């Protein structure tokens, strides 16, 4: 049976996909929260740098960024291994997207909330961490969820650097066995991953909503 021969390579590919997803998400979201918080302090020179960073990361394809890091940087004397290149490109790209989403979330919090903090004597830091940020995260959670689903699918891009992730495992199987069936299995696995992520995201969103989560 074909499926018996495919289980191991597809499983290994899925593990690589999940690893890239998990590390990118675990690093880029906290990093984006930190940088968006610094951005919210509105220090002109720092924000100019952030704007430039976000413009480059969002305005060029992730594929190009990955190829630049892996194939381009060695010409500038910086050589990174395949894994490091993948994680660096993914983390920088997703940090930029998450930062923009968080910036919108922070701006969406009513200015009266900050005034209430001032009247109650909270420091700027305490106001931000305890009042503004939790509301901002809640407001932009659906957009963060969209990015999470995109990230799962974007992991397939690492195949161009020769990494053996899910899509590459499927493509190898198609070439080996001369049938398109492995692609269907790959599609089903991606669907299972995104559906599970969507389920978890919805649960988390509900939990974050103080009224619904009661």
């Amino acid at each position, binding site marked *: 049976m074909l499926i018996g021969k495919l289980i191991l390579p597809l499983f290994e590919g899925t593990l690589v996909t999940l690893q890239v997803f998990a590390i990118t998400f675990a690093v880029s979201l906290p990093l984006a929260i930190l940088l968006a918080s610094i951005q919210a302090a509105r220090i002109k020179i720092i924000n100019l740098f952030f704007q430039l960073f976000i413009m480059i990361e969002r305005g060029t394809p992730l594929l190009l960024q990955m190829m630049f890091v892996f194939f381009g940087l060695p010409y500038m004397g910086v050589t990174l291994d395949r894994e490091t290149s993948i994680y660096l490109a993914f983390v920088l790209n997703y940090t930029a997207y998450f930062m923009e989403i968080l910036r919108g979330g922070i701006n969406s919090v*009513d200015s*009266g*909330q900050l*005034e*209430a903090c*001032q*009247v*109650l*004597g*909270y420091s700027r830091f*305490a106001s931000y961490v*305890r*009042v503004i940020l*939790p*509301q901002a995260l*809640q407001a932009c959670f659906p957009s963060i969820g969209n990015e999470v689903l995109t990230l799962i699918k974007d992991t397939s891009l690492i195949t161009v650097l020769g990494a053996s992730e899910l899509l590459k495992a499927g493509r190898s199987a198609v070439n080996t066995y001369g049938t398109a069936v492995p692609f269907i299995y790959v599609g089903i696995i991606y669907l299972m991953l995104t559906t599970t992520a969507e389920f978890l995201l919805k649960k988390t969103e509900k939990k974050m909503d*103080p*009224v619904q989560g*009661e």
Partner: protein
Amino acid sequence: MLIIKNLSKSFGKKKVLNNVSFCMDDHEIVCLMGKSGMGKTTLLRCLNQLETIDSGTIQLNGLTLSTGQKKDKAFQKAVGLVFQNYNLFPHWTILENCINAPVYHQLMSKKEAIQKAESLLQEMQILEEKNSYPNTLSGGQKQRAAIVRACMLDPKILCFDEPTSALDAESARKVAAMIKELSKKEIGILIVTHDEHFAEEVSTKIIRLDELTA
């Protein structure tokens, strides 16, 4: 005793407060009235240090706010504000809204804060809503919660910005009764309102801002 002397405040070229002077005793209920745009809310905001003052002084029980002064924490603690739209923190329960500021300022332990908040919520007849979130309460309930939140810091002066603007006549009467009760606790009450009937019912003194301007 609150003494405001020659207070002026401009926004750009527009002079909103022009040499305003008045005083009030700790136990008084003063209603500040005047046409829209006369600077009533701006005066409250200056008193709560949400705006800096251009000239003049504000004195409260030996504490003084003057031009170009940085935020005075002791003054801030001595003045409370119930916002027109309440500005309760939506991600905290009513109890959390009430206890977090005094606990943050280490004015009392969490246990003491809970006891005090529950007692005040009982007085305001919303104790049963202590574990509810602000978005599930009516306007009147939110206002009473906001009053408790402000009272938790033991202000010497409690300011109200248009407390009856979102209330029906019956609720406005209840608010008037509650404000009268509060003033018995040696809290000076300063109310900005357009509601003549409410002002006459609740106040010990009515100040018309257009008559104060030099």
